[in-house]
């Protein structure tokens, strides 16, 4: 799901910062107030875990592979705005050290995986009853919201790629990613809805089970006052 440099117009990549940069600013402001002590290494650890998750590909039926992101897991564990920072950091490290995702494309990759995925996943988790004391309900909510979050991120990627030939052409030829919305969106949706999204849901549920066993309460069950 990482978009490399060259796939999108620089105007599009940098322009997506109009959404991503304010999200980063809000996240930084919220974390300055609420992130203290033990949460700092926990967030860095979860960010590194997200980085490692994105390296490990799972084989799925059909011969393709998929990978999880962990964005909804981080959002449920330490808060949605912490997840924005955590996944953004993992994406920046991947872009710089592995060339996985472009550096100029960092704003748009963070928009998809660090803003859309965890914020939508967390909102769905709250709506699906993630704040309730019923543990089974919380875990089901976590799995379902993680599935929705990553699928929505995949849809965003498909739309962004599909807009390129519509907006940027040299004569009759597309200048950047060559596939239309009608081609890019179904490919992204099918490969994720039938593969990677299930992986994300499973990793999120398993991750929460272990965090709860280690004494880390989900963000929604903590005292909200700073």
């Amino acid at each position, binding site marked *: 799901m990482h978009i*490399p*440099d*060259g*796939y999108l*117009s*620089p105007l599009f*990549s*940098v322009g997506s910062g109009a959404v991503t940069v304010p999200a*980063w*600013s809000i996240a*930084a402001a919220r*974390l*300055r107030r609420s*992130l*203290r002590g*033990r949460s*700092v*290494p*926990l*967030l*860095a*650890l979860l*960010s*590194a*875990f997200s*980085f*490692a*998750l994105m*390296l*490990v*590909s*799972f*084989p799925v*039926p059909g011969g393709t*592979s998929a990978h999880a992101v962990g964005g909804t897991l981080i959002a449920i564990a330490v808060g949605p705005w912490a997840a924005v*920072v*955590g996944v953004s950091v*993992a994406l*920046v*490290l991947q*872009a*710089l*050290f*592995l*060339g*996985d995702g*472009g*550096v100029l494309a960092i704003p748009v990759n963070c928009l998809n995986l660090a803003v859309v995925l965890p914020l939508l996943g967390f909102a769905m988790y709250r709506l699906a009853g993630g704040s309730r004391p019923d543990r089974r309900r919380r875990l089901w909510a976590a799995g379902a919201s993680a599935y929705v979050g990553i699928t929505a991120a995949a849809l965003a990627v498909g739309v962004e790629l599909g807009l390129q030939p519509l907006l940027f052409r*040299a004569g*009759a*030829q*597309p*200048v950047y990613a*060559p596939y239309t919305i009608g081609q890019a969106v179904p490919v992204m949706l099918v490969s994720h809805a039938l593969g990677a999204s299930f992986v994300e849901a499973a990793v999120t549920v*398993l*991750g929460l089970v*272990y*965090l709860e066993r*280690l004494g*880390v309460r989900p963000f929604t069950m903590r005292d909200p006052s700073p």
Partner: protein
Amino acid sequence: MSGWLERTAAGIAGSVERAVFTEEHARGPGWLQRVDPRAKLGMFLVAVLAAGFLTSLPALLALYAVVLAAARASRTPFGLFVPRVWAGIPLFAGIVVVPSLLLGRPPYLFSQRLGPLTLALSIPAAAAALVFVARVGVSVSLAALLVLTTPWADLLRSLHAVRVPPVFVLVLSMTYRYVFLLLHTLSGMLEARRSRVVAPTGGREQRAWIAGGVAVLMNRSFQLGSDVYAAMLARGFTGEVRIHRRLSMRGADWLALAGTAAVGAAAVAAGRLLA
């Protein structure tokens, strides 16, 4: 053990090995290694923006020649730099655009009828695909050169200098260290499995193993996080980020930045003339 687990293990080991070499090379003698990291960050952004706007293959190749010259001046071994870049993302980009060659407009290089279908390789689509792959390759080369010539600590300082919020810099710094620890742990787990499994295993068993492995990795990582927090408290951590070394731009740094901007502008102008 075969297939994707083996590829994953090899990929992780390769990542760690590359990172160690990168940090050593970034502290070595060379032109870009001496440039202020903030100037380098600016040079990189200007150059990758210029590459992003280019639609002419000759202009992209000329820009790539400048990148290679900068890599040579920074004593970056071509045997590592060029294959490392082109064997990854650009190769994948080439594979991704192959279907678009059959969806383009005439004139066609060849046309072959296969039952009800007609496969025709479009010449304009092929030319556009070449430009696309070249642009991806130049962009990835620029990012690789930035990382190969800049120590990680200097990259963090340059981010702080361009007003990236301290919380991002702090989490980036800690995550960088944790990543290598997690990669090392994961590599060890994969190697332990490889040394104990003597027969091929199916996808189902591998998925079950990786699910358990992810849980074990989280467990070990959480223990590490608790230990790190205790160590930070013991050393006086109060949540505030402090940057010790101050950066200062020299005349040569401003010249390098201005020169890169000039080259980028010239490439874009030449690209428009040639397109």
